[in-house]
């Protein structure tokens, strides 16, 4: 896996090799690879001279530092009470039907992963979802499908 090695090295060069730089590096890998593979994690441990357990322990603490393979676009639908009251279940159902996957799964072409997330700060404009870093609010079933279809076709 020379590619991951190179990525880790370049991130370590950019942010530094101290413990306090660990999160920056892990975030940088997730940005490029969508998740943290075992190879990537042990490479980070080697590069920063930390134990693999310390790196893995830190990575698994954070929801956005995935340690399982994810699609190119990670959809996170807010599940907290305001979005729940505004019908997030229908939104999830519609996306599941459209992408033919269940919550927590990734499409066969590795393009989409569908997840739930805790309150993302759009309670007044729910239901809301994130696709990677981008927030989409005031969702309806039609609007959600339109957004997903656009990603499927154009991105």
């Amino acid at each position, binding site marked *: 896996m020379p590619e991951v090695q190179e990525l880790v090295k370049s991130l370590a060069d950019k942010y530094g090799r101290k413990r306090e730089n660990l999160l920056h590096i892990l975030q940088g890998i997730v940005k490029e690879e969508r998740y943290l593979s075992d190879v990537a994690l042990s490479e980070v441990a080697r590069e920063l001279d930390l134990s693999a357990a310390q790196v893995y322990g830190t990575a698994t603490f954070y929801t956005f530092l995935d340690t399982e393979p994810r699609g190119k676009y990670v959809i996170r639908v807010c599940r907290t009470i305001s979005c729940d009251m505004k019908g997030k279940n229908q939104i999830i159902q519609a996306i599941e039907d459209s992408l033919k996957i269940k919550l927590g799964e990734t499409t066969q072409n590795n393009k989409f992963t569908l997840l739930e997330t805790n309150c993302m700060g759009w309670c*007044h404009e729910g239901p809301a979802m994130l696709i990677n870093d981008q927030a989409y609010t005031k969702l309806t079933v039609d609007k959600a499908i339109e957004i997903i279809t656009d990603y499927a076709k154009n991105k």
Partner: protein
Amino acid sequence: MTVNTLKRIDLIFHEDCECRQVLEKTFSKSNDDIINDVLESGLKGRGGAGFPTGLKWKFTAEQPADERFVICNADEGEPGTFKDREILFKVPSKVFSGMAVCAKVIGAKKGYIYLRGEYRYLLPELQKALDTFHRDIKDLIDFEIFIQMGSGAYICGEESALFESMEGKRGEPRNKPPYPTVAGFKNKPTVINNVETLVYAFMICKHGPLRFKEMGTSDSRGSKVFSVSGDTPIAGIYELELGMSLEHFVEEFGDGDTKAVQVGGAAGFCVPRKKFKETIIGFEGVPTGGSMKVFNSSRSMYNVLHNYLEFFEEESCGQCTPCRVGCQQLMKGVEAVKKGEKKAVYLEQLLKLSDTMKMASKCGLGQSVANSFSSIVNNFREEMIY
């Protein structure tokens, strides 16, 4: 006829002021005078806990050290809170300016904004505004601000967990004392303030402490930014004077059929209709970091509680037993009562468990689960059972 206690205020979002001019004026004062202004204003932390901001600054300034930090807590994760996002989006330079004033007072050369991962889309604009700010104040003060991203962990809004996260570790809260004013980020004396607190501190520098002090009540001075959501026709962000009664709040924001308001998010208190009149929003009554969720009579309070417990169960860092096991057991317990697998009196045991969590948990997360749990179970007991 009673006086309406609900007053809209326009301080925080009001026209973007000339930050540099206010900073020049402020920096011409002595550090003691600035601290005294903030103390005099009565400003308390706007993140929820409500520690007097002036004291925090004073303690940090007085702590002998070779390096001190100022940190802006933008890990806004409390369900129903979204006002910091709006502040950072609309008036970022006021946040930076508040940090600069604090930096001068405590002698910090570096400041950090810890921004939650869910708000990463704010980063490009925020960084641009920050670069402009640095250029503007270069000759005024030797102070630089860095933005650090979180990665999706509610607990990192707890100050000591936030320091751990900034140091590249799991966001697990530390034992206190020592408090951040003594040993915070990198074990150096650190002021950590909520986004909104820093803006108010800056507004106090601009307008003087009196303007702020004359608003609110003796325990809750000033105004506060509220995030209103749920069953309301006018969900959104509102700056209101503190000390209003919940009855007046509901008159303004309710949909005419309000049965309860959750004040302060999942970690806050659920107030039922019969207590609206006597409930004051502020530190003398029910405090809030800004979250106000309105529920009408079509809502099942069991579903609300279950949603909160799911939230806590997942966001508990797992470090201390009362919180880790307590959150799981409370959720299993209410499910069992609802299904009829346990008798209704089992709720008493669960209430006792939540009390234990309040006493024995290490940090604010585990300690505040009992707030929503006991206020929902006690006020809507029949909905928990049937």
